[in-house]
């Protein structure tokens, strides 16, 4: 697991693009919007997954743009069932492959199982299935592609929509500033399930994303990666700004890139001095209606949460000494 170490992005990563694999697993010809950050994320996630894997996908943007009969953009074996059950389907695929391998019906080791879902299919309607799959400890990786709203059905809010953002079901108005709750902390939820590998990632930091996906796949048991996917259509930003906005999200502390390995927090992209959140919010039309009080609140919250994350990274590990097994304690006593 330490093979790739900490995926710390530095300038040299930019020039190492040629070291990345060339084979496309998420082919051209998909119907995503121009400049789609999620399509870029999926393109690279699929490359990081490699050939020997099976994908279970939720209903959502990526599923719709890539799998309209009779054409498919997927080079992987891929299954879509419904909106909220991706983690359950992936659990089934993992268990099915496990029993077939045990019975010697597979030629070779079982392929990796990857579940992909949007923020809608993960943080809201899919949360139950995700929780069940993480708790049962299936050997799979869940990748949440977070474009911060139910984009495919027309930009309705989700629990991943950031505070103050305009969506069609959290529109600003006389009685509303837009989304009035803070983004749901999925990393904390995954960590609370005792998942051995949890991480945030962004296609703007490509090597970081690439190595995190590889690490997740190699970690035995469940792994959860939350990928920020910029959506120019829903965020009302220019179509060529997706990679830049992803970078700004990290540099302003809005979406820090970190990983949690067996409960141990570690920043993978360090930002020595955070930029003001307005740098991130200004190019996006969905925040245009916000006034000074809201922006100030967002700035204070972002800074505070980032400090908290830094503290978590500093925290003594493990926090408490591990519980001693009952038998061992008895042996110890007898030995005395």
């Amino acid at each position, binding site marked *: 697991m330490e093979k790739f170490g900490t995926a710390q992005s530095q300038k040299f990563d930019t020039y190492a693009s040629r070291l990345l694999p060339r084979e496309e697993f998420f082919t051209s010809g998909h119907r995503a919007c121009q400049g789609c950050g999620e399509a870029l994320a999926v393109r690279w996630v699929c490359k990081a997954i490699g*050939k*020997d*894997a*099976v994908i*279970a996908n939720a209903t959502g943007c990526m*599923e*719709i743009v890539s*799998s*309209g*009969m*009779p054409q*498919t953009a*997927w*080079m*992987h*074996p*891929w*299954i*879509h*069932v*419904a909106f*909220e*059950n991706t*983690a*359950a*389907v*992936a*659990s*089934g*695929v*993992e*268990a*099915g*492959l*496990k*029993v*077939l391998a*045990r*019975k010697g*019906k597979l*030629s070779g080791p079982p*392929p990796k199982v990857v579940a992909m879902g949007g923020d809608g299919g993960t943080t809201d309607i899919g949360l*139950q*299935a995700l*929780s*069940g799959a993480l*708790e*049962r400890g299936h050997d799979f990786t869940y990748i949440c592609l977070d474009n911060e709203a139910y984009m495919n059905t027309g930009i309705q809010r989700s629990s991943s929509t950031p505070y103050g953002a305009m969506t069609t079901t959290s529109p600003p108005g006389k009685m509303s500033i837009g989304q009035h709750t803070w983004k749901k902390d999925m990393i904390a939820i995954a960590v609370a399930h005792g998942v051995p590998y949890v991480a945030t990632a962004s296609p703007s930091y490509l090597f970081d994303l690439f190595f995190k996906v590889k690490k997740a796949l190699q970690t035995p048991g469940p792994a959860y990666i939350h990928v920020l996917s910029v959506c120019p259509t829903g965020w009302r930003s220019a179509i060529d700004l997706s990679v830049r906005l992803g970078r700004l999200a990290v540099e302003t502390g809005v979406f820090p890139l970190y990983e949690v390995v067996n409960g141990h927090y570690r920043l993978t992209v360090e930002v020595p001095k955070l930029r003001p959140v307005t740098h991130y919010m200004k190019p996006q039309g969905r925040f245009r209606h916000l006034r000074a009080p809201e922006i100030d609140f967002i700035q204070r919250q972002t800074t505070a949460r980032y400090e908290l994350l830094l503290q978590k990274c500093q925290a003594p590990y493990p926090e408490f000494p591990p519980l001693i097994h009952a038998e061992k304690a008895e042996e110890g006593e007898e030995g005395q």
Partner: protein
Amino acid sequence: MGHRVGMEVSIAVSHAVQLARAEAIAAYPITPQTHIVEHLSSLVANGELDAEFITVESEHSALSACIGTSAAGARTYTATSSQGLALMFEILFIASAMRFPIVMNVANRALSGPLNIWNDHSDIMAARDIGWIQIFVENGQEAFDHTIMAFKIAENHKVLLPTIVNLDGFILSHVVEALEILDQEAVDKFLPAYHPRYRLDPKEPVTMGAFAMPEMYTEVKMAHQVALTNAYDQIVKVWEEYAKLSGRQYQPVERYKTKGAKVLLLTMGSLSEVAEIAVDELREAGVPVGLVKLRLWRPFPFADLRAAVAGAELLIVCDRALSLGGAAGPVMAEVRSAFYPVASQPQILGYAIGLGGRDVSPQTFKEVVSQAQREAQQGPSQEFYLFGVRG
């Protein structure tokens, strides 16, 4: 070939699943199916069944996980009842549309509103259109037999459709019955290993569950309808093959003392055995009554039903569920519809009995018959009859 035991039907059903060598089970407990999944859990835990048992967190996830295991290429089983069946509702359609040969036992239980854990058919009647093969059994032996046969029917490459075997909750699931458990050797000979047509395999990648525009949806549905209708032939074939193995021959529509019967009762599930007693008693009293037992529900056996009922003047369809606000008795509505194109047909009346587990005795049937005969003679006074309702 087998050995006779006195065994709770739920346990017998779990032995059927064990003998069928199911490879993946994803199930969520719900009364009255619990004993089936509990026993399967212990068989897996004791190494007596080499399968993956996924203790999912809801029935919706249960069927979703079943689709996953079936897509991976494993022989898949689950069981549920009532609210659980209702919770997996959207996935039921998807499982059959995607042609996964999942076998499911439904221990029929009343649907809530109000909560009721006892037997009726409202759960499965609300799922008529899901596109699965659906079979009803009337006793424990049949529950055992049909669960084994379901795997063979579902996994046949000419069929490849998920299959439900309905057994009445509590009345069958929790009752101890003398029945024959087949030997593993006999079942292995009858039921070969599962070879999926397509599976999720990086060596031959496929895309499952693509979406269809209006230009293509109709065609995909046509293929499904044809497959389900044509499954009839394979079902009958499997039942004949099993008869050679077990000595028990099953038919899509079975008749009991229908010769010379002017009045016929139609029942499904365990009610059939009770009705048989009533038919015996009525016949002794000189009433020319017979019984038609509907075993195969989907695909609907139109020809067999029309043939079984030919010659009768009055057909009393006994529903154990309601289709509220409509024709009221779902089975009655489908039976009437089956006779619509037929030139000569009996008068068809529908009686709903035994809702929410209310006891149905032979006396109930005798009263239903005499009431129906009166109604038929005077001209039906109601659209449907909720028999035994107080008030």
